[in-house]
């Protein structure tokens, strides 16, 4: 938990004081107050680092997902799986007419109609999955050169992240298309 919270701190700060902070928390124990204190300190250090970068005291890189792109892609895929399964089964059942699946899909659809929150999570999942999978492809660097503050956007291409992000976009588009199509059918009925 405490090592996860350390990610809130700038990398240079974490490399210098991280182990000592963990040792201190091992000595004092971890409770809700400690979690809040460490989280607040992390945000403060980030802000201090950003101010220093803008004032010419160094550079600051904002890219929390940059270091573990495969992990972020895996999490994005995990978020996407329920919606992807639902869209795939819906297409097989209603677009391709595999009637054998209708018995499975009908109760699922009825349940989703009665559970608005689950419905909302299912609809939002492709968007969330896209952001999670694509986040490691982008980072922002703040710096000051010759007294002028500058922000540089860094982009990179990684196949696994691009595949998951594209899959999320495709599933999202299919889902939106499905929702619009159903609305049109209901208007016509």
């Amino acid at each position, binding site marked *: 938990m405490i090592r996860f919270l350390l990610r809130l701190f700038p990398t240079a*700060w974490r490399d*210098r*004081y991280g*182990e*000592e*902070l*963990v*040792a*201190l*928390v091992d*000595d*004092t124990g971890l409770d809700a*107050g*400690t979690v*809040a*204190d*460490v*989280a*607040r*300190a*992390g945000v*403060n*250090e980030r802000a*201090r680092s950003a101010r220093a970068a803008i004032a010419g005291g160094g550079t600051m890189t904002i890219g929390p997902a940059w270091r573990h792109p495969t992990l972020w892609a895996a999490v994005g895929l995990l978020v996407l799986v329920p919606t992807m399964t639902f869209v795939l089964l819906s297409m097989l059942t209603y677009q391709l007419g595999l009637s054998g699946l209708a018995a499975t899909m009908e109760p699922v659809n009825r349940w989703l109609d009665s559970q608005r929150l689950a419905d909302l999570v299912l609809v939002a999942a492709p968007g969330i999955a896209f952001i999670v999978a694509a986040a490691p492809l982008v980072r922002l660097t703040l710096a000051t050169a010759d007294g002028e503050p500058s922000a540089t956007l860094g982009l990179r291409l990684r196949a696994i992240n691009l595949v998951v992000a594209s899959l999320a976009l495709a599933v999202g588009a299919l889902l939106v298309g499905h929702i619009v199509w159903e609305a049109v059918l209901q208007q016509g009925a």
Partner: protein
Amino acid sequence: MTDTNFPNDPGLLLMISLAGGPKHGHAMLLDVEGFAGVRLGPGTLYGALSRLESAGQVEALPAEGRRRPYRLTPAGRLALADRLTALERAVTTGVARVGA
């Protein structure tokens, strides 16, 4: 915590603690709790310590396992003396005005 309101200034509390000799994080935390009755959180303590080290007012000593002791630098000792003198003046004036 702000930087100017004793006893809520963690930097000042840490400098007072280190004025008594080098200490690592946990020893500072216990010392501050003992003389000021303030329990600093680990994030607050290391946030303040990193600012003091950046300012050249404290310095790290060689690590002892996972722990690293810190001590006041000569510049830190001077800065602490200045701040305590200013505080003392304020306290003396305040006490005289409230008639305590």
